[in-house]
């Protein structure tokens, strides 16, 4: 990179102007706010925050709480709908040096790319005191080779399997969460096997065993330390036995017609939840909120949560402060407060996002949390234990997020009837295009 010619800021601005024009061709305009919108005036500090999806800080009223405790601070939050929209915009703004917020959320799938390419645009957190309460692997994912820490961890995504008690009963399967967990303990293959039994025995309408084969794939792959890249940063997705194994099992499930062929987080999935067109979904902790909301009141108590066959981490985020911010110290203080054990515990109790803080996970009020919607499942215990099972060393890669999406599409092809070899070939070609 350093070999390449790096030109002046003005030239970069011109490039961005052209990119903006490209964006116009593509029919989407960019925002053109100046600097970050944050600042200090008459002893009053304004901090701007850019988030995505449901991260829990805004939803559980933490910003108001902070403002109340610090009357001179005014926090302005902007939340983008989903991360796939948020991240390209963040990229554009980082490149342009315009339109950024003081604090920006960073999703785990993008962490590596930010660490490798944008480290100089974020503030170092390594000097923040009392920020040593995280799970051993969490902070390493946002730290550069020379030890610069670009943010602090928010939540993590330990996994479980959400299942419909009523459907399990109709298929002659056990309904108690301990017994259900025993059905597939230790091996995802057993989970698919349960699916075959379910398909055979279920009486009472058109119900698939799982929502999407891609959910199963993600759950399996995220359980391995090495996924799409090795520690040297080489792409190994096509030789990694873990990926191949997960692909094959997910393709098995797709070919045996065990999936409802839905696309997770897309509109067809929501009515699927509301009308109960599938009996199980591999659910990272942060998915519970979505299920609760979309499956709605009529399905309360029908859903339950069982331990997943293997521990894995799907998702989670960080909060970083941009170098451009005029209120760096204040923003860092806010980030440290938001990610402190007490606040993480608060979000977990209110919202269900699992703390990335080891200290928070050990708090008694976290351990005893239950979820009324999911038949009073002891989520604190289930996800707390699942969090400890996550491999201590997870190697992230630059294009993890893109590769995950591309493989999900490949599995959708298998669900629609393409042979798995052909779908894998297509997926490989697409990944090659995407990572260069």
């Amino acid at each position: 990179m350093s070999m390449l010619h790096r030109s002046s800021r003005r030239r970069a601005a011109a490039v961005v102007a052209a990119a903006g024009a490209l964006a116009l061709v593509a029919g989407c305009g960019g925002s053109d706010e100046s600097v970050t919108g944050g600042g200090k005036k008459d002893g009053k500090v304004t901090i701007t925050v850019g988030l995505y999806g449901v991260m829990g800080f805004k939803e559980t009223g933490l910003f108001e709480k902070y403002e109340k405790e610090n009357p001179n601070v005014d926090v302005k939050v902007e939340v983008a709908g989903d991360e796939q929209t948020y991240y390209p915009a963040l990229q554009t703004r980082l490149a342009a040096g315009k339109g950024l917020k003081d604090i920006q959320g960073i999703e785990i799938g993008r962490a590596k790319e930010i660490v490798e390419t944008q480290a100089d645009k974020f503030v170092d957190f390594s000097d923040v005191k009392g920020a040593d309460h995280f799970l051993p692997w969490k902070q390493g994912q946002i730290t550069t080779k020379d030890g610069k820490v670009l943010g602090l961890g928010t939540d993590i995504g330990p996994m479980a399997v959400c299942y419909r008690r009523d459907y399990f009963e109709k298929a002659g399967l056990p309904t108690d969460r301990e017994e259900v967990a025993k059905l597939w303990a230790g091996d995802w293959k057993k989970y698919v096997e349960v699916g075959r039994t379910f398909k055979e025995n279920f009486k009472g309408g058109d119900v698939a065993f799982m929502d999407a084969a891609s959910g199963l794939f993600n759950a399996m792959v995220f359980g391995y330390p090495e996924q799409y890249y090795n520690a040297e940063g080489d792409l190994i997705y096509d030789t990694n036995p873990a990926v191949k194994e997960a692909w094959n099992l997910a393709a098995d499930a797709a070919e045996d017609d065990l999936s409802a062929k839905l696309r997770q987080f897309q509109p067809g999935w929501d009515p699927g939840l509301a009308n109960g067109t599938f009996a199980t979904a591999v659910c990272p902790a942060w998915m519970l909120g979505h299920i609760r909301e979309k499956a709605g009141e009529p399905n309360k108590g029908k859903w339950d949560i069982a331990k997943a066959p293997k521990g894995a981490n799907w998702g989670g985020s960080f909060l970083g402060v941009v170098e451009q911010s005029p209120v760096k110290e204040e923003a860092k203080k806010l980030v440290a407060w938001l990610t402190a054990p007490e606040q993480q515990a608060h979000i977990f109790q209110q919202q269900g996002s699992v703390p990335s803080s080891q200290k928070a996970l050990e708090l008694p009020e976290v351990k005893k949390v239950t979820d009324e919607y999911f038949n009073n499942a002891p989520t604190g215990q289930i996800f707390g234990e699942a969090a400890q099972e996550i491999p201590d060393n997870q190697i992230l890669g630059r294009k993890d997020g893109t590769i995950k999406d591309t493989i999900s599409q490949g599995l959708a092809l298998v669900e629609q009837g393409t042979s798995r070899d052909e779908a894998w070939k297509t997926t490989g070609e697409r990944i090659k295009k995407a990572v260069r």
Partner: protein
Amino acid sequence: MATSTTKAQAGGAGRRGPSRTPGGDGTGRRRGALLHRLDVKGAPYAFVAPFFVVFAAFSFYPLLYTSWISLHRVELATLDVMEWVALDNYIELWNDSRFWNALGNTITIGIISTVPQLLMALGLAHLLNYRMRGSLFFRVASLVPYATSVGAAALVFTMIFERDFGMINWGLGLVGIDPVDWEADKWPAQLAISTIVIWRWTGYNALLYLAAMQAVPADRYEAAAIDGASRWKQFTHVTVPGIRSTIVFTIVLSTIGATQLFGEPLIFGQGPNGVTGGADNQYQTLGLLLYEEGWKNYQMGRSATVAWAMFLLLVLVFVAQRLIKRLRSRTS
């Protein structure tokens, strides 16, 4: 802006010029004549200059810069790091099956959406042209879809075409037809996207036709009626030739629109499938390919290459149209 004001002032000075000259000497008169000529010849350029200044800044410069980017390898995250690759991006695009797939989809969706749309617009305009009660209401109503945002329209249609709980599949179920997976299958998906386009643009084109129809002199219809032409004959022999230039205009507009089709398939696909135009790229248009390269793969160079390919495609269509026209006028 600054340029236009100074030019306007120069024009103004030119106008004042002649009134000062009558009592002056020869050189003054000559200067006055010069200013006068400048006024007559130069003023029109001064008046259109603002447009061209804006055009140069916001269209022509980006156009050139896009071509410059397309000759480089540039990533969205690091726009100031450019690596010269000459025509590699173009060669790669030419050899990329996704490009030909996207081109094919753009053409098929373009045809499926444009042809019925213009025919229906013609029919609708013909009906609106009749004297009837509440004609204003119908005219306004036909323009409402045009005033709806792409996003809102596409979102509603996406729900209507939803596989499990969409209205269309529900309706098909009532008459005993199996549900169609509108998003996952190629032709149903292209048909559904075309429906959104047709719904949005038919009324707009109908109003253009209507305006043109009202300019067709009534005595032509009278003459045709005296000759014993039926309503249909009148339509094909008087109305259609009478609004021919408008028809050509709408075809040109629709072709440009179809080449740039982007918002409808993006929203119809939802999320990652929107960007790639379906899991199998079954409805990825050139516009979506551009977006995928730029905003999913973060390769601005390749994205710019697609943009230029789209532009060249339009130029090609334009040249072909001129050639056909010239050939036809030569044969007739």
